[in-house]
C-alpha cells in the first residue's frame, strides 16, 4: 500500500522541499535514507533502462570489434587504420556525440545505444587485436601444419586463446559504459542519468537523488565486473585468471 502511494508522496515531498525546512528532504542536507526507502520503486525502471543500454551497447560493441578484428586479422596494415578510426570516435566528448547523433537517429534509447557502442569499439577492438597477436606462433604453425584451414585456425585456436584479453577489454568497456550511460539523458534516453539530472540537478539540486543514483551506478559497475570475472574464468579454464 505504501508502495502505491510512494510516487505521490515523493511529489509532495519534492514540492515541499522549499517549505518544510524541518525534514531531511526539506533541508536537502545530504543523503536522506528514509526518502530512498519510501521511494525505492521509483529507481527500478531507470536502473533497468540503464542496465539494458549498457548490455546492448557492450554486446554490439563486442560484435563490431570482433568483426573488425577478423577483418584486420592477417591484414596488419588495417590495424592502425581501425585503431585510428575508432580512436577518433573515442575522443569525441560524449555529450557532443549524442547531440551530433540526434538529427540522424532522433531522441531515444537507440541514439544512446549507438553512441555508447561507438565508445566501446576502440577499447574492445584494441584488446581483441592484442589477444590475437598474443597467440603463440608455435600454436599457429602447428595448427597449420596439421591441416587446419584458416577458418578452423581462427575459431578453433586463435579466438579461444584471445578470449581472456577480449573479456579484459569488455570489462573496461563495461565499467566505462555504465558511467557514460548517465549522459544518455542528453540523447533523450532514460536510465540513471534521468534520476541524476531531471530529478536531481534540475530538481533544486536534490542531493539524495544525485547521491543514490550515483551509488547505483557504482554498484552496477561492480556487479557487471563481477559477472565478467566469472565469465573470464569459465571461458578460459586453461589459465589462472589474471585479475587486473
Amino acid at each position: 500500500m505504501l508502495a502505491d502511494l510512494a510516487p505521490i508522496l515523493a511529489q509532495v515531498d519534492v514540492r515541499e522541499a522549499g517549505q518544510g525546512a524541518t525534514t531531511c528532504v526539506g533541508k536537502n542536507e545530504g543523503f536522506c535514507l528514509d526518502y530512498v526507502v519510501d521511494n525505492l520503486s521509483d529507481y527500478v525502471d531507470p536502473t533497468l533502462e540503464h542496465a539494458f543500454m549498457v548490455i546492448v551497447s557492450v554486446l554490439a560493441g563486442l560484435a563490431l570489434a570482433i568483426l573488425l578484428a577478423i577483418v584486420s586479422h592477417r591484414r596488419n596494415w588495417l590495424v592502425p587504420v581501425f585503431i585510428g578510426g575508432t580512436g577518433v570516435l573515442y575522443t569525441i566528448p560524449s555529450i557532443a556525440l549524442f547531440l551530433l547523433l540526434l538529427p540522424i537517429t532522433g531522441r531515444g534509447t537507440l541514439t544512446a545505444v549507438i553512441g555508447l557502442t561507438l565508445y566501446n569499439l576502440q577499447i574492445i577492438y584494441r584488446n581483441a587485436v592484442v589477444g590475437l597477436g598474443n597467440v603463440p606462433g608455435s600454436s599457429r604453425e602447428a595448427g597449420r601444419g596439421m591441416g587446419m584451414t584458416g577458418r578452423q585456425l581462427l575459431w578453433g585456436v586463435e579466438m579461444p586463446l584471445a578470449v581472456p584479453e577480449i573479456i579484459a577489454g569488455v570489462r573496461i568497456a563495461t565499467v566505462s559504459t555504465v558511467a557514460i550511460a548517465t549522459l544518455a539523458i542528453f540523447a533523450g534516453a532514460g536510465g540513471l542519468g534521468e534520476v541524476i539530472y531531471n530529478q536531481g540537478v534540475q530538481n533544486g539540486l536534490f542531493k539524495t537523488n544525485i547521491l543514490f543514483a550515483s551509488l547505483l551506478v557504482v554498484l552496477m559497475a561492480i556487479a557487471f565486473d563481477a559477472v565478467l570475472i566469472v565469465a573470464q574464468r569459465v571461458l578460459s579454464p586453461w589459465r589462472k585468471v589474471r585479475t587486473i
Partner: protein
Amino acid sequence: MPGQETSEGAGAVSVRFRDVTKRYPGAETNAVESLTLDVEAGEICVLVGPSGCGKTTAMRMVNRTVEITSGDILIGDTSVRDRSPAQLRREIGYVIQQIGLFPHRTIAQNIGTVPGLLDWDRSRIDARVKELLELISLPADVADRYPSQLSGGQQQRVGVARALAADPAVMLMDEPFGAIDPINRERLQNEFLRLQAEIRKTILFVTHDIDEAIKMGDRIAILREGGHLAQYATPSELLMAPADDFVEDFVGADRALKRLSLMRVADIDLWEAPLAYVGQATGEVRAKLAGAEVPHALLVDSERRPLGWLSESDLRQETVPQRPDSSPDPILDLDDVMRDALSDVLQAESRYAPVVDREGRIAGVLSVEIVHEFLSSDEAKVEEHPAAERPLA
C-alpha cells in the same frame, strides 16, 4: 572397435624429392637447389647442415607449408602438388621444436586434433588418445590436463603423440628435441627410436646437430649453404668416407669415435683367448697359448664364465689354481656400444677384455688392437643397423 587402427595400421610409404628447388620471393639465391633425394619407406632420413642450408625449407615443402618453386615431391606415387594443402597435411605427422601444443585444449583434445579434422567419431578418437598415451608412456590421467601442467619432456611426448594420432605414413620432425635439456633430450631420443622400431614410419628429421643426426638417422642428408646436397649416405658411410672437405669438417674430427658409437661389440670380429679351467693341467693350457691370438689364458668356470686372467706364475704350477692373481675386469657385453667398450678397456689400463653373451659365457676377447685395425682398414664396413635398432648410448 570397428574401424580402429593400431599404431602399425598404415603401411609406410617412400618420399621422393625430384629436382626440388625453392626460391623465396625477393631472394637473390635459391634456398634449396635442385634437391633429389629418396627416403625409403619406414626409414628415418635426417636433414642436417648449418643454419641457412635450407634443411627446414626442404622438409616443409613435403607438407606444403612451404610451396615448391620447381621440381616435385612424391609421397608414394602421388605428387604433393596434386593434393590440397590441408588434406595433405592431415595425412602427414608434424612435430616442431616449440612443440606448439594448443594451450587452451586438454592433452586429450590436443592429441585428437587431426582425427577431429578428419571427422572421426568421438569414441574412436577417445580410444585412439588412450592408445597413444600408453604408447608414449604417459599416465591416462594427464588426458584432462592442460599443456602448461606438463613438463617440457612430457609436452614433447604429447607433441609426438599428436603427430601420430591419425596414423600418418610420413612424419616431419623439425628439431623436435632442440628445446629440451641434454639429459632429457637423450631420453626422448632413445624413447623415440624405440617407438620407431614399433611404428616404422617414414620420417624426415631436421637437426643442426651432427651427433643427433648420426644417432637418429638411417640415412643422413648433409646440406650446405644455398640448399645444395653435399652428401646423402648412411651414418657409417658418412663417417668413413666424407664426400668432401665440407662434410668432413661438418662431421667433426672425432668421426672415428663416432663410428664406434654406431656399433656394438658384436659387430666386430673378436679374438679368441685360450681358455683354462680350474684343476686343468697347465701343460695343456701352455700348449694352447702357443700361436693363440691373445697371449694370455683366461680362467673360466664350468659354464665358461670368465673368472680372471692367468699369470706366468699361475701357469708354472702343476694344475690351474683356484684363485687367479688378476680379475677378468672389465667384462664386456656383446650388446655394449663399441665406443663405451673401448673406453672401458682404456680406463682399466688393460689390453684385453673378455666379452660375454647374455648368459655371461665367454664369446671372445676385445683388444685395443682389434679396434685399431678395424678403423684403419678401408673395407671394414660394418653391417649397418637401422637407427631404431642401434645401441642406445
